[in-house]
Protein backbone atom coordinates (compact mmCIF):
# COMPACT_ATOMS: atom_id res chain seq x y z
CA UNK A 1 0.00 0.00 0.00
CA UNK A 2 2.65 2.51 1.05
CA UNK A 3 4.94 1.36 -1.68
CA UNK A 4 2.13 1.84 -4.19
CA UNK A 5 1.40 5.34 -2.98
CA UNK A 6 5.09 6.22 -2.97
CA UNK A 7 5.46 4.82 -6.49
CA UNK A 8 2.59 6.94 -7.78
CA UNK A 9 4.00 9.98 -6.02
CA UNK A 10 7.48 9.53 -7.45
CA UNK A 11 6.13 8.99 -10.92
CA UNK A 12 3.90 12.06 -10.81
CA UNK A 13 6.68 14.29 -9.56
CA UNK A 14 9.05 12.89 -12.19
CA UNK A 15 6.61 13.35 -15.07
CA UNK A 16 5.53 16.86 -14.08
CA UNK A 17 9.11 17.83 -13.36
CA UNK A 18 10.47 16.53 -16.64
CA UNK A 19 7.60 18.09 -18.62
CA UNK A 20 8.06 21.49 -17.02
CA UNK A 21 11.84 21.35 -17.41
CA UNK A 22 11.49 20.53 -21.09
CA UNK A 23 9.83 23.88 -21.71
CA UNK A 24 12.84 26.13 -21.00
CA UNK A 25 15.17 23.65 -22.68
CA UNK A 26 12.98 23.54 -25.79
CA UNK A 27 12.74 27.34 -25.86
CA UNK A 28 16.52 27.44 -25.78
CA UNK A 29 16.78 24.75 -28.50
CA UNK A 30 14.25 26.63 -30.59
CA UNK A 31 16.07 29.94 -30.34
CA UNK A 32 19.54 28.51 -30.83
CA UNK A 33 18.25 26.23 -33.59
CA UNK A 34 16.62 29.10 -35.44
CA UNK A 35 19.84 31.06 -35.08
CA UNK A 36 21.79 28.13 -36.49
CA UNK A 37 19.42 27.82 -39.45
CA UNK A 38 19.39 31.57 -40.13
CA UNK A 39 23.14 31.93 -39.62
CA UNK A 40 22.99 34.16 -36.54
CA UNK A 41 24.22 33.69 -32.99
CA UNK A 42 21.04 33.51 -30.95
CA UNK A 43 21.00 34.01 -27.17
CA UNK A 44 24.52 33.41 -25.85
CA UNK A 45 25.03 35.83 -22.95
CA UNK A 46 23.12 34.42 -19.97
CA UNK A 47 24.81 31.28 -18.69
CA UNK A 48 26.88 28.84 -20.78
CA UNK A 49 25.78 29.13 -24.44
CA UNK A 50 22.73 31.12 -23.33
CA UNK A 51 21.24 28.15 -21.50
CA UNK A 52 19.88 30.28 -18.68
CA UNK A 53 18.11 32.72 -21.01
CA UNK A 54 14.69 30.95 -20.81
CA UNK A 55 14.82 31.01 -17.00
CA UNK A 56 15.53 34.72 -17.01
CA UNK A 57 12.64 35.17 -19.45
CA UNK A 58 10.36 33.20 -17.15
CA UNK A 59 11.23 35.43 -14.20
CA UNK A 60 10.67 38.49 -16.36
CA UNK A 61 7.23 37.23 -17.39
CA UNK A 62 6.39 36.46 -13.78
CA UNK A 63 7.04 39.99 -12.54
CA UNK A 64 5.63 41.86 -15.56
CA UNK A 65 2.48 43.90 -15.22
CA UNK A 66 -0.65 41.98 -16.18
CA UNK A 67 -2.75 44.05 -18.56
CA UNK A 68 -6.44 43.25 -18.64
CA UNK A 69 -7.91 45.45 -21.36
CA UNK A 70 -11.21 47.25 -20.94
CA UNK A 71 -14.26 45.37 -22.12
CA UNK A 72 -12.88 41.83 -21.83
CA UNK A 73 -14.94 39.02 -20.40
CA UNK A 74 -12.81 38.66 -17.30
CA UNK A 75 -13.81 35.13 -16.39
CA UNK A 76 -13.14 33.72 -19.86
CA UNK A 77 -9.99 35.80 -20.19
CA UNK A 78 -8.43 34.21 -17.12
CA UNK A 79 -9.96 30.78 -17.65
CA UNK A 80 -8.47 30.33 -21.14
CA UNK A 81 -4.76 30.11 -20.21
CA UNK A 82 -5.64 27.92 -17.23
CA UNK A 83 -7.47 25.46 -19.47
CA UNK A 84 -4.57 25.50 -21.92
CA UNK A 85 -2.07 24.53 -19.25
CA UNK A 86 -4.31 21.96 -17.50
CA UNK A 87 -4.99 20.18 -20.80
CA UNK A 88 -1.35 20.22 -21.85
CA UNK A 89 -0.21 18.82 -18.51
CA UNK A 90 -2.91 16.14 -18.31
CA UNK A 91 -2.10 14.59 -21.66
CA UNK A 92 1.31 13.13 -21.02
CA UNK A 93 0.29 10.85 -18.14
CA UNK A 94 -1.24 8.30 -20.51
CA UNK A 95 1.89 7.94 -22.64
CA UNK A 96 3.93 4.81 -21.83
CA UNK A 97 7.63 5.58 -22.10
CA UNK A 98 9.52 2.47 -20.95
CA UNK A 99 9.18 -1.28 -20.32
CA UNK A 100 8.56 -2.21 -16.72
CA UNK A 101 8.35 -6.01 -16.63
CA UNK A 102 9.43 -7.63 -13.36
CA UNK A 103 10.70 -4.58 -11.54
CA UNK A 104 11.17 -4.79 -7.79
CA UNK A 105 11.66 -2.18 -5.11
CA UNK A 106 12.55 -3.29 -1.56
CA UNK A 107 11.44 -6.80 -2.60
CA UNK A 108 7.94 -5.67 -3.55
CA UNK A 109 7.05 -6.24 -7.20
CA UNK A 110 6.09 -2.91 -8.69
CA UNK A 111 4.81 -3.79 -12.12
CA UNK A 112 3.55 -0.73 -13.83
CA UNK A 113 5.93 1.54 -12.00
CA UNK A 114 7.11 3.41 -15.00
CA UNK A 115 3.97 3.17 -17.06
CA UNK A 116 1.84 4.14 -14.11
CA UNK A 117 -1.77 4.40 -15.14
CA UNK A 118 -1.55 1.83 -17.90
CA UNK A 119 -4.93 2.80 -19.33
CA UNK A 120 -6.63 0.25 -21.54
CA UNK A 121 -8.19 3.14 -23.44
CA UNK A 122 -5.01 5.21 -23.67
CA UNK A 123 -5.61 6.46 -27.21
CA UNK A 124 -9.19 7.49 -26.47
CA UNK A 125 -8.09 9.28 -23.30
CA UNK A 126 -5.51 11.27 -25.20
CA UNK A 127 -7.85 12.27 -28.01
CA UNK A 128 -10.62 13.15 -25.57
CA UNK A 129 -8.44 15.37 -23.40
CA UNK A 130 -6.60 16.88 -26.38
CA UNK A 131 -9.88 18.01 -27.91
CA UNK A 132 -10.49 20.19 -24.85
CA UNK A 133 -7.50 22.30 -25.87
CA UNK A 134 -9.59 24.04 -28.51
CA UNK A 135 -11.68 25.59 -25.73
CA UNK A 136 -8.72 27.56 -24.45
CA UNK A 137 -8.17 29.01 -27.92
CA UNK A 138 -11.83 29.84 -28.55
CA UNK A 139 -12.33 31.35 -25.11
CA UNK A 140 -9.15 33.40 -25.37
CA UNK A 141 -10.19 34.70 -28.78
CA UNK A 142 -13.74 35.44 -27.74
CA UNK A 143 -13.00 36.82 -24.28
CA UNK A 144 -10.25 39.25 -25.33
CA UNK A 145 -12.47 41.89 -26.96
CA UNK A 146 -9.89 42.28 -29.68
CA UNK A 147 -10.49 41.82 -33.39
CA UNK A 148 -7.17 40.12 -34.04
CA UNK A 149 -7.74 37.75 -31.14
CA UNK A 150 -11.26 36.93 -32.28
CA UNK A 151 -10.14 36.14 -35.84
CA UNK A 152 -7.17 34.15 -34.55
CA UNK A 153 -9.36 32.16 -32.20
CA UNK A 154 -11.91 31.30 -34.87
CA UNK A 155 -9.23 30.37 -37.34
CA UNK A 156 -7.44 28.21 -34.81
CA UNK A 157 -10.56 26.32 -33.86
CA UNK A 158 -11.52 25.68 -37.50
CA UNK A 159 -7.99 24.48 -38.18
CA UNK A 160 -7.83 22.28 -35.10
CA UNK A 161 -11.10 20.50 -35.75
CA UNK A 162 -10.25 19.97 -39.42
CA UNK A 163 -6.95 18.35 -38.61
CA UNK A 164 -8.29 16.42 -35.66
CA UNK A 165 -10.35 14.41 -38.15
CA UNK A 166 -7.40 13.34 -40.26
CA UNK A 167 -5.42 12.66 -37.09
CA UNK A 168 -7.98 10.31 -35.54
CA UNK A 169 -8.56 8.57 -38.86
CA UNK A 170 -4.83 8.00 -39.36
CA UNK A 171 -4.67 6.27 -35.97
CA UNK A 172 -7.43 3.79 -36.92
CA UNK A 173 -4.86 1.80 -38.90
CA UNK A 174 -2.58 1.64 -35.85
CA UNK A 175 -5.43 0.38 -33.68
CA UNK A 176 -6.24 -2.30 -36.26
CA UNK A 177 -2.63 -3.51 -36.34
CA UNK A 178 -2.43 -3.57 -32.52
CA UNK A 179 -5.97 -4.82 -31.92
CA UNK A 180 -6.16 -2.61 -28.87
CA UNK A 181 -6.52 0.97 -27.63
CA UNK A 182 -3.89 0.20 -25.01
CA UNK A 183 -0.77 2.25 -25.80
CA UNK A 184 1.63 -0.28 -24.28
CA UNK A 185 0.14 -2.95 -26.52
CA UNK A 186 0.47 -0.61 -29.48
CA UNK A 187 4.20 -0.49 -28.72
CA UNK A 188 4.59 -4.25 -28.18
CA UNK A 189 2.68 -4.92 -31.40
CA UNK A 190 5.51 -3.15 -33.19
CA UNK A 191 8.21 -5.54 -32.03
CA UNK A 192 9.83 -8.06 -34.34
CA UNK A 193 10.21 -7.85 -38.08
CA UNK A 194 7.87 -7.54 -41.03
CA UNK A 195 8.38 -9.16 -44.46
CA UNK A 196 11.44 -10.89 -43.02
CA UNK A 197 13.71 -7.91 -42.45
CA UNK A 198 11.89 -4.59 -41.92
CA UNK A 199 11.30 -3.56 -38.32
CA UNK A 200 7.57 -3.88 -37.63
CA UNK A 201 7.15 -0.19 -37.01
CA UNK A 202 3.82 1.23 -38.00
CA UNK A 203 5.56 3.94 -39.98
CA UNK A 204 7.01 1.32 -42.32
CA UNK A 205 3.79 -0.69 -42.53
CA UNK A 206 1.53 2.31 -43.09
CA UNK A 207 3.73 5.26 -44.10
CA UNK A 208 0.69 7.20 -45.29
CA UNK A 209 -0.88 7.13 -41.82
CA UNK A 210 2.42 8.10 -40.23
CA UNK A 211 2.92 11.10 -42.49
CA UNK A 212 -0.67 12.24 -42.00
CA UNK A 213 -0.32 11.95 -38.23
CA UNK A 214 2.92 13.96 -38.20
CA UNK A 215 1.45 16.69 -40.42
CA UNK A 216 -1.69 16.80 -38.28
CA UNK A 217 0.48 17.02 -35.17
CA UNK A 218 2.04 20.18 -36.56
CA UNK A 219 -1.43 21.62 -37.14
CA UNK A 220 -2.58 20.53 -33.68
CA UNK A 221 0.30 22.24 -31.94
CA UNK A 222 -0.22 25.35 -34.13
CA UNK A 223 3.33 25.26 -35.35
CA UNK A 224 4.79 26.92 -38.34
CA UNK A 225 3.61 25.60 -41.61
CA UNK A 226 0.17 25.83 -39.97
CA UNK A 227 0.45 28.61 -37.40
CA UNK A 228 -2.49 30.50 -38.89
CA UNK A 229 -3.87 31.14 -35.43
CA UNK A 230 -0.96 33.39 -34.63
CA UNK A 231 0.20 34.43 -38.08
CA UNK A 232 2.28 37.32 -36.73
CA UNK A 233 2.30 39.14 -40.06
CA UNK A 234 -1.49 39.48 -40.28
CA UNK A 235 -2.99 38.87 -36.84
CA UNK A 236 -0.29 40.32 -34.55
CA UNK A 237 -0.33 37.33 -32.16
CA UNK A 238 -3.72 35.80 -32.85
CA UNK A 239 -5.70 34.61 -29.88
CA UNK A 240 -3.13 35.68 -27.29
CA UNK A 241 -2.64 39.22 -28.57
CA UNK A 242 -4.03 40.74 -25.37
CA UNK A 243 -2.24 38.45 -22.95
CA UNK A 244 0.74 39.47 -20.89
CA UNK A 245 2.59 38.39 -17.77
CA UNK A 246 1.98 34.89 -16.42
CA UNK A 247 -1.23 34.48 -18.44
CA UNK A 248 0.84 34.69 -21.60
CA UNK A 249 3.45 32.38 -20.12
CA UNK A 250 0.72 29.79 -19.50
CA UNK A 251 -0.15 29.75 -23.22
CA UNK A 252 3.49 29.65 -24.15
CA UNK A 253 4.25 26.74 -21.82
CA UNK A 254 1.20 24.78 -22.94
CA UNK A 255 2.38 25.06 -26.54
CA UNK A 256 5.75 23.56 -25.75
CA UNK A 257 4.28 20.83 -23.53
CA UNK A 258 1.91 19.95 -26.38
CA UNK A 259 4.93 19.62 -28.62
CA UNK A 260 6.56 17.14 -26.25
CA UNK A 261 3.37 15.09 -26.01
CA UNK A 262 2.95 15.10 -29.79
CA UNK A 263 6.53 13.94 -30.29
CA UNK A 264 5.98 11.18 -27.71
CA UNK A 265 2.77 10.12 -29.44
CA UNK A 266 4.42 9.99 -32.86
CA UNK A 267 7.08 7.77 -31.30
CA UNK A 268 4.60 5.46 -29.59
CA UNK A 269 2.12 5.13 -32.42
CA UNK A 270 4.37 4.96 -35.46
CA UNK A 271 8.01 4.53 -34.49
CA UNK A 272 7.95 1.56 -32.17
CA UNK A 273 8.07 3.42 -28.87
CA UNK A 274 11.08 2.23 -26.87
CA UNK A 275 11.97 -0.62 -29.25
CA UNK A 276 15.29 -0.91 -31.02
CA UNK A 277 14.96 -2.58 -34.42
CA UNK A 278 16.21 -6.22 -34.57
CA UNK A 279 17.26 -6.19 -30.91
CA UNK A 280 15.17 -7.39 -27.99
CA UNK A 281 15.62 -5.49 -24.75
CA UNK A 282 16.81 -7.17 -21.51
CA UNK A 283 14.43 -7.33 -18.54
CA UNK A 284 14.64 -5.76 -15.12
CA UNK A 285 16.00 -2.34 -14.27
CA UNK A 286 18.53 -2.42 -17.09
CA UNK A 287 15.82 -2.97 -19.67
CA UNK A 288 13.76 -0.22 -18.11
CA UNK A 289 16.65 2.23 -18.24
CA UNK A 290 17.63 1.28 -21.76
CA UNK A 291 14.07 1.56 -23.05
CA UNK A 292 13.69 4.94 -21.40
CA UNK A 293 16.86 6.08 -23.15
CA UNK A 294 15.74 4.84 -26.56
CA UNK A 295 12.33 6.45 -26.13
CA UNK A 296 13.86 9.76 -25.10
CA UNK A 297 16.23 9.71 -28.06
CA UNK A 298 13.33 9.27 -30.47
CA UNK A 299 11.31 12.00 -28.78
CA UNK A 300 14.28 14.37 -28.94
CA UNK A 301 14.60 13.68 -32.65
CA UNK A 302 10.94 14.58 -33.26
CA UNK A 303 11.24 17.68 -31.10
CA UNK A 304 14.13 18.77 -33.26
CA UNK A 305 11.99 18.01 -36.33
CA UNK A 306 9.38 20.45 -35.00
CA UNK A 307 12.03 23.17 -34.67
CA UNK A 308 13.66 22.33 -37.97
CA UNK A 309 10.40 22.48 -39.94
CA UNK A 310 9.33 25.69 -38.23
CA UNK A 311 12.38 27.58 -39.39
CA UNK A 312 12.47 26.01 -42.85
CA UNK A 313 8.98 26.17 -44.32
CA UNK A 314 6.85 29.24 -44.99
CA UNK A 315 3.31 29.57 -43.71
CA UNK A 316 0.32 28.12 -45.56
CA UNK A 317 -2.53 30.35 -46.74
CA UNK A 318 -5.77 29.64 -44.90
CA UNK A 319 -7.68 28.25 -47.89
CA UNK A 320 -4.72 26.01 -48.73
CA UNK A 321 -4.69 24.78 -45.15
CA UNK A 322 -8.37 23.87 -45.18
CA UNK A 323 -8.13 22.28 -48.62
CA UNK A 324 -5.17 20.17 -47.49
CA UNK A 325 -7.05 18.99 -44.44
CA UNK A 326 -10.41 18.24 -45.99
CA UNK A 327 -9.63 17.32 -49.58
CA UNK A 328 -6.30 15.53 -49.31
CA UNK A 329 -5.56 14.28 -45.79
CA UNK A 330 -9.07 13.07 -44.96
CA UNK A 331 -9.46 10.74 -47.99
CA UNK A 332 -5.84 9.60 -47.69
CA UNK A 333 -6.35 8.71 -44.02
CA UNK A 334 -9.33 6.54 -44.99
CA UNK A 335 -7.22 4.97 -47.73
CA UNK A 336 -4.53 4.22 -45.14
CA UNK A 337 -6.72 2.13 -42.87
CA UNK A 338 -8.30 0.41 -45.87
CA UNK A 339 -4.77 -0.65 -46.84
CA UNK A 340 -4.15 -1.98 -43.34
CA UNK A 341 -7.46 -3.85 -43.51
CA UNK A 342 -6.61 -5.41 -46.85
CA UNK A 343 -3.08 -6.27 -45.71
CA UNK A 344 -4.38 -7.94 -42.56
CA UNK A 345 -7.17 -9.80 -44.34
CA UNK A 346 -4.85 -11.08 -47.05
CA UNK A 347 -2.15 -12.14 -44.62
CA UNK A 348 0.61 -9.72 -45.71
CA UNK A 349 0.43 -8.32 -42.20
CA UNK A 350 -0.16 -10.91 -39.55
Amino acid at each position, binding site marked *: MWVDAAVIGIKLVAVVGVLLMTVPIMVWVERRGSALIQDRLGPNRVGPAGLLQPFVDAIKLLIKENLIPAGVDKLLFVLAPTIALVVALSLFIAVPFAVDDGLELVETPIDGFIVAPD*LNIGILYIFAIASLAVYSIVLAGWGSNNKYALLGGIRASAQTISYRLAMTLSVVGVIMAAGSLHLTQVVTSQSGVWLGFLPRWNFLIQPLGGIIFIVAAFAETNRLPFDLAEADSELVAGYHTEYSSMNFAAFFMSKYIHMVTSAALITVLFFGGWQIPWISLPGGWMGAGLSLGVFSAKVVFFLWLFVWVRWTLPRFRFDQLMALGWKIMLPLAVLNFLWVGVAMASGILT
Partner: protein
Amino acid sequence: MEHYVPILVYALVAISFPIIALLMAKVVRAGSPDPVKAEPYECGVKTNTVAFDTRFSIRYYLIAVLFVIFDVETIFLFPWAVSFDRLALFGFIEMMVFLAILLVGYVYAWRRGALEWA
Protein backbone atom coordinates in the same frame (compact mmCIF):
# COMPACT_ATOMS: atom_id res chain seq x y z
CA MET B 1 -10.69 1.04 -11.75
CA GLU B 2 -7.49 1.43 -9.73
CA HIS B 3 -5.84 2.55 -12.97
CA TYR B 4 -7.76 5.78 -12.71
CA VAL B 5 -6.51 6.76 -9.25
CA PRO B 6 -3.17 8.03 -10.60
CA ILE B 7 -5.08 9.85 -13.34
CA LEU B 8 -7.19 11.57 -10.72
CA VAL B 9 -4.17 12.53 -8.61
CA TYR B 10 -2.39 13.74 -11.70
CA ALA B 11 -5.41 15.77 -12.79
CA LEU B 12 -5.39 17.49 -9.40
CA VAL B 13 -1.71 18.32 -9.85
CA ALA B 14 -2.37 19.55 -13.39
CA ILE B 15 -5.23 21.77 -12.24
CA SER B 16 -3.44 23.18 -9.23
CA PHE B 17 -0.22 24.03 -11.08
CA PRO B 18 -1.62 26.84 -13.29
CA ILE B 19 -3.72 28.18 -10.42
CA ILE B 20 -0.70 28.36 -8.12
CA ALA B 21 1.44 29.87 -10.89
CA LEU B 22 -1.14 32.53 -11.71
CA LEU B 23 -1.70 33.39 -8.05
CA MET B 24 2.04 33.60 -7.46
CA ALA B 25 2.38 35.96 -10.41
CA LYS B 26 -0.43 38.04 -8.97
CA VAL B 27 1.50 38.47 -5.73
CA VAL B 28 4.90 39.36 -7.14
CA ARG B 29 4.13 41.32 -10.29
CA ALA B 30 4.37 45.04 -10.75
CA GLY B 31 1.45 47.10 -11.93
CA SER B 32 0.40 50.66 -12.52
CA PRO B 33 -2.97 50.55 -14.24
CA ASP B 34 -3.76 53.28 -16.72
CA PRO B 35 -6.81 53.72 -18.97
CA VAL B 36 -4.58 54.12 -22.03
CA LYS B 37 -2.88 50.79 -21.35
CA ALA B 38 -6.28 49.13 -21.02
CA GLU B 39 -7.32 49.93 -24.59
CA PRO B 40 -7.65 46.93 -26.90
CA TYR B 41 -4.59 46.47 -29.07
CA GLU B 42 -5.44 47.82 -32.48
CA CYS B 43 -4.05 50.55 -34.70
CA GLY B 44 -3.75 53.35 -32.16
CA VAL B 45 -6.91 55.18 -33.15
CA LYS B 46 -9.67 55.05 -30.53
CA THR B 47 -11.73 51.94 -31.15
CA ASN B 48 -15.41 52.54 -31.72
CA THR B 49 -16.75 49.00 -32.02
CA VAL B 50 -16.39 45.97 -29.79
CA ALA B 51 -14.75 42.87 -31.18
CA PHE B 52 -17.82 40.72 -30.65
CA ASP B 53 -19.53 42.66 -33.46
CA THR B 54 -16.82 41.76 -35.96
CA ARG B 55 -18.22 39.78 -38.85
CA PHE B 56 -16.57 36.56 -39.85
CA SER B 57 -17.16 34.06 -42.60
CA ILE B 58 -20.13 31.71 -42.28
CA ARG B 59 -17.83 28.97 -43.57
CA TYR B 60 -16.39 28.50 -40.09
CA TYR B 61 -19.84 27.41 -38.99
CA LEU B 62 -20.15 25.05 -41.93
CA ILE B 63 -16.78 23.50 -41.12
CA ALA B 64 -17.92 22.93 -37.54
CA VAL B 65 -21.05 21.12 -38.71
CA LEU B 66 -19.04 18.95 -41.11
CA PHE B 67 -16.62 18.16 -38.31
CA VAL B 68 -19.38 16.92 -36.04
CA ILE B 69 -20.65 14.57 -38.75
CA PHE B 70 -17.24 13.11 -39.58
CA ASP B 71 -16.15 12.92 -35.97
CA VAL B 72 -19.11 10.71 -35.12
CA GLU B 73 -17.96 8.47 -37.96
CA THR B 74 -14.53 8.06 -36.38
CA ILE B 75 -16.16 7.12 -33.09
CA PHE B 76 -17.83 4.24 -34.94
CA LEU B 77 -14.53 3.27 -36.52
CA PHE B 78 -12.62 2.85 -33.24
CA PRO B 79 -14.45 -0.19 -31.82
CA TRP B 80 -14.50 -1.70 -35.29
CA ALA B 81 -10.73 -1.28 -35.58
CA VAL B 82 -10.10 -2.84 -32.15
CA SER B 83 -12.03 -6.01 -33.01
CA PHE B 84 -11.07 -6.09 -36.69
CA ASP B 85 -9.35 -9.47 -36.28
CA ARG B 86 -12.45 -11.12 -34.84
CA LEU B 87 -14.98 -9.56 -37.19
CA ALA B 88 -13.30 -11.14 -40.22
CA LEU B 89 -14.65 -10.56 -43.71
CA PHE B 90 -18.20 -9.74 -42.65
CA GLY B 91 -17.05 -6.84 -40.50
CA PHE B 92 -14.85 -5.55 -43.29
CA ILE B 93 -17.70 -5.54 -45.82
CA GLU B 94 -20.05 -4.01 -43.26
CA MET B 95 -17.63 -1.13 -42.76
CA MET B 96 -17.23 -0.71 -46.52
CA VAL B 97 -20.99 -0.21 -46.79
CA PHE B 98 -20.87 2.34 -43.98
CA LEU B 99 -17.99 4.18 -45.65
CA ALA B 100 -19.76 4.11 -49.02
CA ILE B 101 -22.76 5.88 -47.47
CA LEU B 102 -20.42 8.43 -45.92
CA LEU B 103 -18.62 8.87 -49.22
CA VAL B 104 -21.90 9.95 -50.83
CA GLY B 105 -22.26 12.68 -48.23
CA TYR B 106 -18.61 13.69 -48.61
CA VAL B 107 -18.87 13.94 -52.41
CA TYR B 108 -22.11 15.90 -52.05
CA ALA B 109 -20.49 18.37 -49.65
CA TRP B 110 -17.51 18.72 -51.96
CA ARG B 111 -19.65 19.22 -55.10
CA ARG B 112 -21.82 21.81 -53.36
CA GLY B 113 -18.65 23.73 -52.52
CA ALA B 114 -18.79 23.27 -48.77
CA LEU B 115 -15.05 22.55 -48.75
CA GLU B 116 -14.13 25.55 -50.93
CA TRP B 117 -12.75 28.58 -49.15
CA ALA B 118 -13.31 31.67 -51.28
